[in-house]
């Protein structure tokens, strides 16, 4: 999978996160992630990217308008938390679906069961923190990833690695120390998830003495490349029924 290195985001003193890109490229040697992206989404790519970025609240751009209403949080913190919530929705959905389908090996399924329970708890915690400023979950289409062992593991490694890197990027950008203290409690858990799934797949749990952060822009790009975010089906309609009666 070839991933373009994006331009550094505003104020990113660490620069583009080469490690994250390299990690994805390494684990996606046969292009499974890319293949998923090519087949899972049928809509307009640009529209999708806009939708996924909007859903994720990428950057303060999408969340700045009325963020002040949230108690004890700044609009900057709200934007960051909304991004985290969107990511937690996506991860929780991935692991929940894998657990429900039950098509993975017992070792991977056991991992998905534990990590899924954690991610669902993270969703609850961040939603509670955001209160009225929470964002609803977008629709997801994981395609065959949740029932294909190799595709699932590669996707899980990519997301867990990048989530840990993302939280490192966000931490110094948070205004509230109490939110920082909370996010740190997530960060260590996400790094354990990453090390655990890396161990399962035979990758080294820790490859460097220091981890680099990865920006929200980088994570948004990963999410967009998978095409996991999809429109929700229209299950209800107003109009005259043509049922037999």
């Amino acid at each position, binding site marked *: 999978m070839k991933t373009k290195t994006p331009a550094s985001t505003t104020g990113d003193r660490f620069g583009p996160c080469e490690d994250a890109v390299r990690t994805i490229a390494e684990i996606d040697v046969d292009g499974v992630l890319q293949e998923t992206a090519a*087949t899972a989404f049928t809509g307009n790519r640009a529209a999708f990217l806009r939708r996924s970025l909007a859903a994720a609240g990428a950057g303060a751009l999408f969340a700045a308008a009325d963020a002040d209403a949230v108690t004890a949080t700044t609009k900057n913190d709200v934007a960051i938390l909304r991004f985290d919530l969107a990511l937690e929705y996506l991860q929780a959905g991935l692991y*929940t679906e894998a657990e*429900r389908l039950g098509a993975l090996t017992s070792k991977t399924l056991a991992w998905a069961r534990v990590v899924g329970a954690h991610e669902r708890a993270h969703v609850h915690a961040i939603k509670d923190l955001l209160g009225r400023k929470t964002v609803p979950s977008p629709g997801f289409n994981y395609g*065959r990833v949740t029932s294909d062992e190799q595709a699932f593991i590669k996707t899980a490694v990519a997301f867990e690695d990048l989530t840990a890197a993302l939280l490192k990027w966000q931490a110094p950008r948070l205004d509230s120390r109490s939110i920082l203290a909370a996010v740190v409690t997530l960060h260590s858990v996400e790094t354990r998830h990453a090390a655990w799934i890396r161990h399962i797949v035979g990758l080294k749990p820790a490859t460097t003495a220091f981890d680099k952060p990865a920006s929200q822009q980088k994570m948004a790009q990963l999410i967009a490349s998978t095409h996991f975010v999809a429109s929700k*089906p229209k299950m*209800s309609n107003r*109009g005259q029924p043509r049922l*037999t009666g």
Partner: protein
Amino acid sequence: MPKRRTALALGAGLALLVVATGLRSTVGDGRSGSSGGSALTALSTAAGRVPHPEHPAFVVGRPVRLRKHETRARFAPVTRAVTARSSPSPTAVPVADLATETPEGTTNIVLVLGEVTKPSGQQVHIRLPVLPNDRTAWVPRRALGGYGFVHTRLVVDRERFTATLFRDGRTVFRAAVGVGRAESPTPTGRFYIREELTGFGNPFYGPIAYGTSARSEVLTDWPGGGIVGVHGTNEPELIPGRISHGCIRLRNPDILRLSRLMPVGTPLTIR
């Protein structure tokens, strides 16, 4: 060995120094405070002031596990028009063409029964919303959107005139129903709730109507193709009984109660 002795002596000396410092600061200045007097505090102070600890904005609670005994069914939207086939092969006999929308303008969903992975890609076994009723077929995974899960199941008994909704195997709703007359019977078999229709302002169907994947085997030229529904009524006094053109009719308070419990995608058994 001499090196080890030297190290031990140094260690003991340091320990004595620390104890002596502590004693001097607690006794020597005439105060017995526990914070300012200890050697550890002195060391801490020497290292600089440590900020007051911050309480986390949230404490992540217990992991949220899925229910152990949840029963679930899976559905998926048709995201691209596709030909459903009799077996999981692109060259198998065509069974039906599936559109992305229903005649009522909602997303066309199908109940998912399983999947297999073939060299040509993953194939999904689905229940079809076409005649003949109770038919299944295969479509490529890429023709479907994301999976949705429901934990409910609706069972309609044509002999007892009842509709029973189960959630995770437990009865959560039961009501009397009207079913098809002898000349337009409600079909039997396994189906699913395909769509919810509201705001139509037609008292004949009551306040809410559900389109199902079941089709009338008699009224095939009905507008929309003879889709069997589950809906309310403007003639509640006729329920229970064989009163309809094939649809399952409930009294309006019952269909409203059912709508709060039954999501679209719920499997439907008519027997």
